């Protein structure tokens, strides 16, 4: 990468970031209501604090929300520049701390779900492509396409019913067993895996068909290329031709897709974490929206957007490594 392309890349990144910041700022404020007029709550038993008009006005001016909107925006940008995400109105602690508590859980399930759906999708795609036009291919394709039409929250609820309510194999909610004492790191890891299993499965299943179809179709396209014919002529045998020659070429678009997929999953995480009451960033975002916690919404959306941007950047770099034709 030379200096010029790097500079344009940085400029593009900055512009994207500014647009995101603006959307993050104005979108929550366009919702009806404000942080101090909450009248309902999700959590049973929580006391709904109703404020007097005087108290409300006091908090509004305390958080600087009585200033003109553009002034608030510039102040927000200035704070951002200093790395100050502000104070969560609901939790009464810095937004950064809230995000740091919840983000690792989301990263955990998204990472696992991506790895799972990509690995399984590629394997199924390979099997399907090798059996093209045979029964097994048709059955697999129809089944997976039908399956992908189930919305992920519905799938989550079904899984929850089967595994947690009927079979009682897995915990209903949370990321760890509350107040548990672990015998060791392995024990703790097992507990985390136990809780993460269903959210990961739900997220992964939602993405599986996409990876599968892309792998299968790209493999079929690739398998008619001349270099595959050359590989067969070399007497390498079916297995090596498919893995070393065909799959290596077919994986290129799959890698690109994985990058986009991480972004999609950030969105999916809101629904899935809500279904499983999984304490990740998605669940936090939901409650932030309910409570009109402007600072927290802004913070979470920003972290999400930046991580998607970073993923895309990363995918670009990986692609460059995988496909020698892109590097020059």
């Amino acid at each position, binding site marked *: 990468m030379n200096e010029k392309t790097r500079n344009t890349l940085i400029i593009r990144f900055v512009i994207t970031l500014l647009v995101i910041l603006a959307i993050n700022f104005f979108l929550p404020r366009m919702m009806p209501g404000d942080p101090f007029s909450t009248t309902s709550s999700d959590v049973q038993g929580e006391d709904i604090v109703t404020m007097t008009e005087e108290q409300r006005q006091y908090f509004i001016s305390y958080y600087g929300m009585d200033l003109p909107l553009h002034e608030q925006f510039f102040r927000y940008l200035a704070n951002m520049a200093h790395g100050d995400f502000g104070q969560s109105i609901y939790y009464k602690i810095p937004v950064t701390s809230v995000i740091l508590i919840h983000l690792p859980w989301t990263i955990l399930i998204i990472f696992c779900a991506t790895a799972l759906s990509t690995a399984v999708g590629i394997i199924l795609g390979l099997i399907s492509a090798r059996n093209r036009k045979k029964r097994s291919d048709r059955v697999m394709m129809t089944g997976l396409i039908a399956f992908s039409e189930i919305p992920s929250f519905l799938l989550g609820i079904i899984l929850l019913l089967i595994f947690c309510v009927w079979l009682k194999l897995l915990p209903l909610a949370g990321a760890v067993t509350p107040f548990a004492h672990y015998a060791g790191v392995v024990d703790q890891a097992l507990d985390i895996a136990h809780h993460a299993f269903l959210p990961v499965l739900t997220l992964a299943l939602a993405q599986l068909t996409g990876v599968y179809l892309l792998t299968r179709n790209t493999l079929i396209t690739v398998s008619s290329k*001349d*270099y595959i014919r050359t590989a067969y*002529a*070399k*007497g390498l045998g079916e297995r090596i031709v498919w893995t070393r020659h065909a799959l*290596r*070429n077919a994986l290129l678009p799959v890698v690109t897709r994985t990058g986009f997929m991480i972004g999609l999953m950030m969105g999916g995480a809101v629904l899935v974490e809500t279904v499983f009451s999984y304490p990740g960033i998605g669940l936090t975002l939901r409650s932030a929206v309910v409570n009109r916690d402007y600072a927290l919404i802004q913070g979470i959306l920003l972290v999400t957007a930046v991580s998607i941007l970073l993923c895309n950047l990363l995918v670009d770099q990986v692609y460059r490594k995988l496909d*020698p*034709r892109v590097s020059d």
Partner: protein
Amino acid sequence: MTLLEVSDLKCQYRLDSHTVQAVDGVSFYLQPGEILGIVGESGSGKTTIALSILRMLGHSASVSGRVSFEGRDLSSLTVPEMNQLRWKEIAIVFQNSLEALNPVMTIGEQVTEPMLRHLPITPSEAKARCVDLFVMVGLDPSWMNVYPHQLSGGMRQRAMLAMALSCDPRLIVLDEVTSALDAFTRKEIRELLYSLQKTRGYSMVLISHDITFVSSLASRLIVLYSGTIVESGPTPEILNDPRHPYTRGLIHATPDIFLYKDLWGIPGDSPAGEKQTGCPFNLRCTQPVDACRETAPFLRPCGNGREIACHRGGIATLLKAEGLRFRYPLPDKKTLQAVDDVDLEIHEGEVLAVVGQTGSGKSTLAHILAGVLVPETGNVLFMNGSVHGGTQGHRFRGIQIVFQDPFSSTSNRFTVCDAVKEPLDINKIGDGEERLRMVKEALDLVRLPSTDQFLGKYCGELSGGQRQRVALARAMIMKPRLLIADEITSALDVSTAANVLRLLKGLQNRRGFAMIYISHDLSLTLKIADRIAVMDAGRIVETGNAHDVMLSPKTGYTRRLVGARIGLCCHDHDHAQEMRADDRKLKP
């Protein structure tokens, strides 16, 4: 022992809606150290043959017939046995394209891959051998670590060749290896293949539509058409004297062989695998008979190691003249020997130009051949019947002649309709309505309007070009098998002459009739003629392929004729001077 023997190979592709017969009963053999060329246009089944040798046709293809390699029947081998043999014994180089090499693997990786598969060799030994191979095919070994897209087309072709040679195979199949290369690279690859074969004795099957490339390397040629072999034999014989109309068409459409002639392809399209009865070439052939439409011909030997599949035994002789002589009496009781012991042969679908200066006896010869003049001695046979006393000019599919001067060959007082219809009237062919329809068809053919207004015009009102076309239409209305065109463009201006000539050649190409084109203009005849006969003082002094006569004239007269072209100031000056020097030497 023969290295490779293919007998009665048939391949059929089953597509969703229909089946395609890609190869239909092909047999050939290859001796060790030999280069065999397989030529044919696209869709003729060349690549299918290459793939079926290595048993690499997919599941959608059904293959029958026998391919034996060093006496082993390849179809009896198991898949692992076949994989042992692939590349180790028979390697294949596919058509040069960006996708013939894996885009995400380095060239070196791809060249060493088969060695590691087939040879008892360590990766570092394979790498060392890869360097040797690169040197052998003329590639710098530093290119080993780059990816295919970083190489030029010629370099990729060399890399693929290195890959094919990596396991030192007994046989290399080269499928369209030069088709995407420029002329220089093509020549370099040709030299490389030539030296490889000479120094290391590789046996090769060379498959291409590029007849020039194939024939420069192969000792024997197989001409493939629509999945069947139409002609095979030693390369020089086939090039110089093609027997099958398809082979002739292919050679005539090759600009490397016919340098001067305008390009005219074989009209029509190949049936490309559709099942049909009869000879697959019959729809495009210049000489079909009934049998051609009914049964497919078998490949039969025809001497000199050649084989041909044609019901008519190859390109047939249409007209044969022997020992023709003709004298004109002069006023002073002397005679002028206008035609002196002329032998001439013209084949079906061929354009023969008779060239010579004015007074060399060309027109007299034309008149004799057309049956207008009776020769003193000798005879002219047209499709085995004598022209003289015959009815060749009075019936369809006979001989027609078009004369030099359209102003005297068509009467001023005739309407266009009458002039064109005249042969039908004289020979009492068809009724009035039918004649009118044929007149209109003939006029369409020569690109003249067939409106009533034009039909009613008098010939005297027409321009020279139009009148010559009317004369042409009058000949074409009889659907001649042989058209004799006697200086038909000499009375026309350059542009009109060019138009009439292209029209005539186009008609000839499309309808497949034979033509004797008589002219004093060598440059013009080179544009259309397959063969040229040079005439001087009543004798034919030289006959040969148009390009041979032009490039290497054998007699002094022809050399003078070639040199008599006026060189323009911008080019050809030295050449013209050389010719003048030649002239001086020739003078006694």
